[in-house]
Each structure stands twice: as C-alpha cells, then as structure tokens.
C-alpha cells in the first residue's frame, strides 16, 4: 500500500496492512517532525509533493526492496500539507518471515525515499520565518544553504 495523504497518518492501519499469515516480524519506521531545526524552534511544517512522480517512485522503491529481500508486504504512507511538530510525516512498514529482511528493507526504503522521492518540506519557525528545508543532496553532496 503506497499512499500520499493530507490527513494524519494512521500508524496502526499502515502496520495492519502488511500483516500476513507467514509473517514472523514487522519492522516499522515512523518519521516524526522535530521541534528544533538548526537550533531554531519550529512551529509546524508543510510538505508538498510532485504527486504522481512521488507515488511512482515509492512504488518502484517497494519493487526494488521486494527483489532484494525476502519480504512479504511493504506499505509506505507519506503525509502532505501541514504537519504539526510531533506528528508523523512518514510511516514505512515491512513484514517478513525472518526479521533480518524486514529491518534491511525498511532501512533501505527510508534512506532511498529521502534521496529520490520528490517531496519537499517547508519549515515554519517560531521567529516568523519560513524556509524550505536545507537538505543535503545526498548524491551530490551539495547543501541548499543560502537560499
């Protein structure tokens, strides 16, 4: 199950969606929004996506994970729009017969999602400023500082 949604993520539902009779373990990664970014207080965030491409890329990452590891089911849910501090921005769940595969695939999925899925975060600071997240372009080692 791949989803992009403006609603709060239902963690329990994402986890239940990977359940399988042969599953021995489920690894779940939950990305939560932090109250501090670069030593400044954050009030909330907003995520925007190039939606069809983001969905396609997430589907493809899931396919790659299925090819590399003996996993049973994969779900990825990413939230868009305003997300308050402390709320989940992404939930990834992977079930497998043996736990090693679930851990490895889940780690791969969040690492790759952060590199290739076209979603952008804007931070709304307590001091009134608004900035697009100064993320490192991991492939190129270029930061977006100074914009």
């Amino acid at each position, binding site marked *: 199950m791949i989803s992009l949604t403006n609603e709060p993520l239902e963690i329990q539902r994402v986890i239940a969606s990977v359940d399988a009779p042969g599953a021995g373990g489920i690894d779940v990664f939950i*990305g939560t929004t932090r109250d501090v970014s670069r030593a400044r207080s954050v009030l909330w965030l907003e*995520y*925007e*996506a*190039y939606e*069809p*491409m*983001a969905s*396609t890329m997430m589907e493809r990452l899931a396919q790659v994970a299925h090819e590399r590891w003996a996993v049973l089911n994969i779900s990825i849910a*990413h939230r868009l729009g305003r997300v308050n501090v402390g709320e989940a*921005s*992404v939930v990834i769940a992977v079930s497998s017969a043996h736990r090693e595969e679930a851990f490895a695939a889940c780690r791969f999925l*969040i690492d790759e*999602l*952060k*590199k*290739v*899925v*076209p*979603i*952008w*975060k*804007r931070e709304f600071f307590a001091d009134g400023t608004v900035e*697009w*997240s100064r*993320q*490192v*372009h991991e492939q*190129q080692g*270029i*930061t*977006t500082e*100074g*914009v």
Partner: protein
Amino acid sequence: MKVTLRLFSIAKEMAGFEEREVEVASGAQAGAVLDILTGLNPRFTDWRGSLRLAVNQEYVPEGHLLRPGDEVAIIPPVSGG
C-alpha cells in the same frame, strides 16, 4: 516545440510560477529549460548543480532529448521523510 514546465519548492519560488508551457528548439535537450529559467532569474545559476530534471516523471540527465508535449519537472533537493 512546446513542453510543459513544472516547478516545485525553491525552484517554484525563484521562478515565480508553478507550471507553464515553454517553447524549446526542436531536438532540444532537457537542460535547455534550465537556460530558460536562468534567463528569468539569474539565481538559478547558483542552483544548477543541485537541481535534477524529470521528464514525464522519470529522472533524466541534462542531455536527455525532449519531445513535443513532454512534462519537464525541476526537482530541487528533496526533503521528504
């Protein structure tokens, strides 16, 4: 020929628009749209090394050949997750 340009995040802010049809030479490469954007706002020069291009929702190198009607997206460094 015409292609549709789509901009996101900081690129959208710098260009001042989100989506626009632009005219490129027949046989133009994807990188040509970056030249157009740099013409609109010279700040794109500093960004050239960190913007990626997607044509019809697939990442492509700057040298990718464009076809009429392509959707060309400017992908600034992503920050999802």
